[in-house]
Structure formats: structure tokens, C-alpha cells
């Protein structure tokens, strides 16, 4: 903008007005409905935001658009309530739902997902977790993490040790939801990993009773895994290594034990009544190609779900993979949670309060 210093007052007022109107125009331009009308009817995917969405865009969505010509728009927060609202009102705007097990299973139980079209989606190389209406897109895991500065020497390295408050005194932090937490409580109590399911709920809650006085924070948000350790408010925490890796890379002295992990699938599903069902299936198939899987895993510190993809990963990232062959490790059974999540989570939330 050309400003003339000699007419200061008039010009500055005019430039302020100009700037204001520019802001207003930019503001209107960024309104979602106007934006959507401009773009060539993209495939809409809903997913977790932040660096995760950036990585999805770079590793999957952009190459997919280049290969197929179908633009992809990634929106924040897989909110099942919004899926329910779209499907019950018959006005389905989202196409792909990318989320963790409990949400995908609750949606599956309610009949919100299209069946996966196996003529388009090749699931033969997927290591597990494939359902009629869902396909996994990566594996993540949870285990014990700590602050290196606080605890340079001895650390609890599995769930049994996490529960051992005499050997490892200090405050704990666990998730404030029943899935994952009940599993680690049972593993800590000595249940054999291979015989974990169906969960012995009573025994699990008894085990949780033991650790309850030592849990300082039942956290809700995943990023708290790092902030609680960084601020040294918590000694031992149940955390995801991909978060720990990113924190380490930005210089935060946190560490993670792979001795025992709870492994989990993250899934993709297509909304029932999606107007872009075919393109959505094509996107899912694209996301399952080994090269794309390896790139995503490299970028985010997650494990690929198709055979052979791990060999394409770089050496540094491979150190952050959960060991799926370690007999101490367990895959979370999402089918189990699909049936029991509502009742057990209610019970768990009551248990936390009292």
C-alpha cells in the first residue's frame, strides 16, 4: 500500500479504512460456506487437527489429488455427534471419518458407516483390524513415559512396575476414559496378555482402586501427555510415543519405554449416504499403499498397517515402532469396546468421582 507521509492524517485514516475493509473481505472469504462453493466439490475428510492433519495433507491428500484429480479438504475433530446430526437429518457433508477405535465402533454400532467396497479397497495386505465398514490406517501405542531430568536412573518400564508405588514412588497420570485404562490395570494386576479379553471388569476396577490414591491427574486431552511431564507435575504417565518423539525433537527431556505397550488401531470409515462414496473408497485404498504408509509412519512416528511398509521406513523412525511380536504387548480389542464402552465408561466416570 502506497502511503504519502506528507498528508499524514488523511492518508493514515484512509489506509486504516482500507486495511479494515481488506480484513473484512478476508474475513468473509474465509467463511466456510463461501469457500466450499469456490472449490471444485472436494472430498471431505474429518480428522484430528494440528500437526497430524498437516502430515495427512502432505503425505496422503496432496499425492492423492495429484494422482486422481480429486481435491481433498481436511476438517478438524472427528465428532460423532456431528455425524449423527448429518445422518439423521439426511444432509451428509462429510465423506471420510478418521478416528480412534471407540468412536469408530460406536458409529459402527449405530450404522453410520458405508460397507467397505472391497472391489476398490485392497485389504489383503492389512495386518489386522479390518471390519465390514472400517479399515485401519495406522497403529499407535501407549506405554510408560517420564521426564529424564526428574528420573535419570530407574523407571517403571511396564504396567506392573507402573503400579508398584513402593519401588517407584511418585505421582501418576492416566487417561480419564475406561478403554486403555482398564486394560493396563489388568495387565498391571498380572493378567496374561494373551488372556486379556474378555476383560475381567471386576478385577480391573479392584486393580484401579489400588492405584487411585497415586494418580494425581486423570487427563482428558492427548497433548497433556507432554505438558504434564514437561512441567514436572507428574512423575509417571501413560503416553503415546509419537507424542514423546515430537517432544524430544523439540528439546523436551522426556522418554518412553517400549518394554510393554498397548497397541491400538486408528481407522477410516465412509459416512453412510456420502455423495462421494467411490472417491472415498479410492482415497482409502490409496492410503493403504505401502509407500504412503511408510511415509506417514516416518512423518508421525506411527506404525504402518500393511505388510512390507515397515521396510520402506527410514532407520530413525523404525526405532519408534511398537513391537507387535513382543508377547508382553496387547492389541486393544475394539470389537469388545464396541459392545461395552457405553456402560463401562459410565461406571468408570462414577468410580473416578467417588
Amino acid at each position, binding site marked *: 500500500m502506497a502511503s504519502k507521509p506528507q498528508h499524514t492524517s488523511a492518508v493514515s485514516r484512509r489506509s486504516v479504512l482500507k486495511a479494515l475493509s481488506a480484513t473484512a473481505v478476508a474475513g468473509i472469504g474465509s467463511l466456510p460456506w463461501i469457500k466450499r462453493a469456490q472449490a471444485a466439490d472436494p472430498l471431505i475428510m474429518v480428522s484430528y487437527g494440528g500437526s497430524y492433519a498437516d502430515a495427512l495433507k502432505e503425505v496422503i491428500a496432496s499425492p492423492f489429488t495429484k494422482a486422481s484429480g480429486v481435491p481433498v479438504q481436511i476438517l478438524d475433530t472427528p*465428532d*460423532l*455427534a456431528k455425524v*449423527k446430526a448429518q445422518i439423521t437429518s439426511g444432509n451428509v457433508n462429510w465423506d471420510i471419518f478418521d478416528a480412534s477405535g*471407540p*468412536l469408530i465402533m*460406536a458409529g459402527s454400532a*449405530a450404522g453410520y458407516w458405508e460397507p467397505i467396497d472391497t472391489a476398490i479397497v485392497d485389504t489383503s495386505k492389512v495386518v489386522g483390524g479390518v471390519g465390514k465398514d472400517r479399515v485401519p490406517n495406522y497403529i499407535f501405542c501407549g506405554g510408560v513415559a517420564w521426564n529424564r531430568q526428574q528420573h535419570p536412573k530407574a523407571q517403571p518400564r511396564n504396567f506392573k512396575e507402573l503400579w508398584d508405588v513402593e519401588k517407584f514412588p511418585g505421582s501418576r497420570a492416566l487417561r*480419564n*476414559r475406561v478403554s486403555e485404562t482398564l486394560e493396563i490395570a489388568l495387565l498391571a494386576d498380572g493378567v496374561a496378555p494373551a488372556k486379556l479379553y474378555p476383560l475381567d471388569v471386576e478385577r480391573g476396577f479392584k486393580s484401579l482402586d489400588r492405584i487411585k490414591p497415586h*494418580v*494425581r*491427574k*486423570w487427563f*482428558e*486431552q492427548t497433548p*497433556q501427555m507432554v*505438558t504434564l511431564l514437561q*512441567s*514436572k*507435575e507428574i512423575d509417571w504417565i501413560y503416553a503415546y510415543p509419537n507424542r514423546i518423539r515430537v517432544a524430544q525433537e523439540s528439546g523436551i527431556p522426556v522418554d518412553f519405554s517400549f518394554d510393554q505397550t498397548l497397541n491400538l488401531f486408528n481407522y477410516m470409515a465412509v459416512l453412510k449416504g456420502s455423495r462421494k462414496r467411490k472417491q472415498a473408497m479410492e482415497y482409502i485404498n490409496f492410503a493403504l499403499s505401502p509407500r504412503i504408509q511408510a511415509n506417514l509412519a516416518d512423518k508421525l512416528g506411527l506404525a504402518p498397517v500393511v505388510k512390507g511398509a515397515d521396510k520402506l521406513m527410514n532407520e530413525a523412525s523404525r526405532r519408534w515402532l511398537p513391537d507387535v511380536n513382543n508377547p508382553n504387548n496387547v492389541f486393544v480389542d475394539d470389537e469388545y469396546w464396541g459392545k461395552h*464402552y*457405553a456402560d463401562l*465408561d*459410565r461406571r468408570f*466416570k*462414577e468410580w*473416578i*468421582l*467417588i
Partner: protein
Amino acid sequence: MPRRNAHLQPSLLIFAAAALVLSTVFFVVPMGFIASYVGNTEKGALAGLIGVATSRLVRVVFTNTVEISVCAAALTVALAYPVALHISRQKARGKIICLALVLMPFWTSILVKSYAFLIILGDHGLVNTILHALTGGSGLNMMFNRFAVLVGMTNFLVPYAVFPILASLAAQNPQVQRAAEIMGASPLRTFWSITFIQSMPGILAGLLMCLVISMGFFVTPSLLGGRKDMMMANVIDMYTREILDWQSASIISLLLLIFSGTLSAIILKIQSRTGA
């Protein structure tokens, strides 16, 4: 008293119309949708109501919500009053600077503020580090408990109480205060019998505003609170987004609305008695 302004009423209605339309479209109608979910399931309305009424989770969390909201609102008003009094005694320029300072926390994300409190109140935080250096003691437990929740909420709520109190202070006739001074009343007596009493409507309005806002608090208790500090909004969130039980969610929402509504009615009643 209401009759006195009777001739003004038709024109007042026109001014109120815009707000009325707005609140009908954006509040009453959506509330109707929410209410419709109470009966709109195969379970039936009665089973849903009994389910919520007998739920221990709902009972404990509801008590929590009322306790936390009342404490937070009372604390906020107590903190906001001296601030408003100070601002009301400033000259024009000082007033603008002070008001900007009061509004500043408004423009900061509640998530950022919650994290900031972790740095201030935590075991290894600012306050405890200073305390440790001074006394050598082990410090205070100020994080992940009711205290932290109240600090976080009060920090958010103060501007909501400052403005109504300030308005009721500014509306006072300074001649009355001067008259009291001339009659020989001590500053304390003048404040108590004249200024404070006349600012009662502002105090009540601030209290009401803070109470109603507190009832819906969500992020602060979840980030700063301990395991016993769950509030109603967290439970509604659990029912709407995790369990997808919209019937229970809508019953609990309506319960909260009725409760806040009753509370507001009581406070407004008291306010009209104090002669607003």
C-alpha cells in the same frame, strides 16, 4: 413503579423486538429441538427420566457444579468490586487504560490460560519455587484440585462482574456522597451506607452473570481440576459425543437450564426489591 412509565411501553417493545427475534431464532427454537430428544427414543421419555434421576454420576456432578459455580461467582464478585471501585474513581484516560487491562484476559485463549496456571501454581511452578526459596518447605498443593479450578474460573469471570458493578457505581449521584461527607460521615460509613448499598443491583447482576456462565464451564475443570471436579458440561459432552445417548444429554441439559433459570429468577426478584 411499573405504571409510571406506561406511556413509554409501546416504543420500548419496538426496541426489544430485535433481541426477541434473535433469542427466539437462536435460543428458543434450538432448545425446542433439544427438548424433543427427551421423548424421541425407543426407550421412552419416562425410562430416560428415571435413568437420569437415579444416576449417581449425574447427582454427584450436579452437586459439584452448583458448589463450584456458587463459590466461583461469589469469589469473582468479591475480587471484581475493588477493581470496579478503583476504575470508577479514575479520570477519563486512566479509566480507558484500566478497562483495557480488565479486558486483556478476554482476548487470551482459555487453553493457553489454563496452561499458564500450570506454570504458576504447579508443584514446580512460580509460586511454589518462591515459597520454597523463602521457607524451605515442601510447598502448597495448588494444582489439579478445587482450588486450581476456582482460580482458573475466577480469572475468566472477573471482567463479567467488573462491568455491571462499574455501571452501577458510575450511575450514582456524587452529590449524595458529598452530602454524607458534609454531614460528618467517616469515609467507611459513606462507602457502606451510600456507595455500596447503591451498587447492589450491579453486584447482583454480576453475580447472576457469573453463576450462569459457571454452570456451563467445561475446559477449565477438565484441565485444572482433580478427579472430583467434573462438571455438568463434561457429562453432557460424554453423553453427546462418546456414548451418543442424546436422550440423557438433553434431559441433563434441560435440568441445568431449569436450575439456572430458577436461580436467575430468584436473583432478579431480589434485585427488583433492592430498587434497581
